[in-house]
């Protein structure tokens, strides 16, 4: 591999403690993001995607949540061992994040200008005036033509798509090396979705920013991602390049996900769906966590947990392929 790793998550475990119960929201997660690469993290609701991203930011909801094990290597440092002050410097400056709900991620009582300049002043030590100038540039960069007027506007005056642009402007303000986008287009309508994705892709190419895109929309994945990581119940079940996933998904769960999306080429009456629901963490089965819903499950699946196995450039957590190899 030519590109070096920007972020390496190893065996991350984020658990929630509720009374005497332990809920393993993220349970032994591995993830590598290279420079300039866009990695998509997909999975159903409750599979631990968002908790993974919040763990990287070290912003797991507390009290209740805690990172109990693992390593998050960034720039030669383990983000889990550095001080909170150092972490504050990394947030927004090196790693920044945008969220699903552009309607609620901006503070309703502060102007757009206040919210952009704040990060610039904090991280880049700019003066008020320089920060304002830079804010205008940033807004122009994300596609506002009347950037100066927007500065004094309150968020409620902007549409969802415009607010998401503002969020992107804020997130990109300090030229971060990694942008975590937690379902950035889910709350937007389709035309705006495409614009926002294009914008993110453009900026990522221009500034060589890596993107960790969290989504459950496979359409979005095929459009922007280089690599795909499929999560189920707090674990990685499959990881491969975006082409391989769509051409030849290995894991039964991934196959199920892909088959449940309508395709233009095939003419079918009824879409396939994956039977059942994601089990809640307190009801995880002992063996493979997907076994109860898996159409290809056999005896071994419900007894033992398969390991994440590397096959060429891909990784897969399934006994079907372990058998093949041996």
């Amino acid at each position: 591999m030519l590109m070096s790793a920007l972020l390496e998550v190893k065996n991350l475990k984020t658990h929630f403690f509720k009374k005497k119960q332990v809920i393993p929201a993220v349970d032994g997660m591995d993830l590598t993001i290279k420079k300039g690469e866009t990695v998509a993290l997909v999975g159903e609701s409750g599979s631990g995607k968002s908790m993974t991203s919040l763990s990287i930011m070290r912003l797991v909801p507390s009290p209740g949540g805690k990172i109990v094990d693992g390593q998050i290597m960034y720039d030669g440092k383990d983000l889990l061992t550095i001080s909170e002050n150092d972490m504050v410097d990394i947030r927004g400056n090196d790693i920044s994040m945008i969220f699903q709900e552009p309607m609620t991620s901006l503070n309703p009582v502060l102007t757009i200008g206040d919210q952009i300049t704040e990060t610039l002043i904090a991280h880049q030590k700019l003066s008020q005036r320089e920060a304002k100038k830079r804010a205008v540039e940033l807004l122009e960069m994300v596609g506002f033509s009347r950037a100066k007027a927007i500065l004094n506007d309150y968020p409620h005056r902007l549409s969802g798509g415009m607010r998401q642009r503002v969020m992107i402007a804020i997130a990109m303000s300090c030229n971060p090396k990694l942008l975590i986008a937690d379902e950035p287009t889910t709350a937007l309508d389709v035309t705006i979705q495409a614009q926002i994705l294009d914008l993110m892709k453009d900026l990522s190419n221009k500034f060589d920013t890596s993107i960790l895109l969290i989504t459950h929309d496979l359409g979005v994945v095929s459009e922007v991602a280089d690599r795909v990581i499929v999560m189920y119940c707090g674990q990685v079940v499959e990881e491969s390049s975006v082409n391989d996933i769509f051409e030849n998904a290995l894991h039964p769960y991934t196959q199920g996900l892909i088959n449940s999306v309508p395709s233009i080429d095939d003419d079918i009456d009824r879409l396939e769906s994956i039977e059942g629901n994601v089990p809640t963490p307190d009801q995880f089965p002992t063996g493979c966590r997907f076994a109860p819903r898996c159409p290809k499950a056999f005896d071994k699946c419900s007894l033992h947990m398969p390991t994440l196995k590397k096959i060429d450039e891909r990784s897969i957590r399934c006994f079907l392929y372990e058998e093949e190899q041996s």
Partner: protein
Amino acid sequence: MTKINTVNESSTEALLNPNLNRKPDTMFKIIVSKFFKNKLAVIGLIFLTIIILSAIFAPLLTPYTPEEQSLRDRLLPPSSDHLLGTDKFGRDIFTRILYGGQISLLVGFISILGSVTIGAIVGSIAGYFGGIIDSILMRIVDTLLAVPTLFLLITLVTIFTPGIDKLIYIFILFGWLGTARLVRAEFLSLRTREFVLSARTMGVKNRSIIFSHILPNAMGPIIVSATLGVGGIILTEAALSYLGLGIQPPIPSWGNMLQDAQNYTIMLKAWWYPTFPGLMILITVLSFNFIGDGLRDAFDPKINE
């Protein structure tokens, strides 16, 4: 800000969001216009403005000074010389009400400013950080709230010589508790909001998240409780002064004017003596309450028109 469209980009978005082509309403404007639709609140505001202005400009409005005695003019009924009559030392009641207003309002405003500031700081720290910090701070609040305040006030005032400054200290000491609880509750719900998380992911420090991101969002309830609180403090001050433990004569306050008049024979002979200070307390407190209610409705996004 003045001109409508910030629409700049794809016309689809402009079409999809008709709000953009409407005249902008800042939140402040919406609140003000809602407030002015509430008749009682406006009446309260008018009364209060008159009272405050006349207290401030007291020297211009009356030829007398509040301490000027004239034994020849004792207990005169209202007349053109003495608009609201005179008291048992021949002092002009109108004058004393104006100057007394200065004291009562000053005590009210300073005390509420102090207690709201302390309450907001304690409440926001407790609510934002939660956990052990919250537990410790809130137990302190609970303990102080369990103290029978009026009796403690009376004790404290008897130990230390009563005076305006001490009265203010005591009001602040016990006044911040309610605000602290209120602000904490606001913070508990606001801190889980997405914009707070989003600010944290951008590396905004805790201090500015608390004071410049969350606190402005909690301003509505704080202003409302402060407004209602001024009325409460004026009442308590009047009660303490009435007991002779508040503002000490000859400095006039509405409460100690009432106390001056508490003699039975005086009340029968000179009805104007207790009536006007009492009426002033009533009108002022009522005005504050009306304004407070009006503000509460104005800040509440669920109430429209």
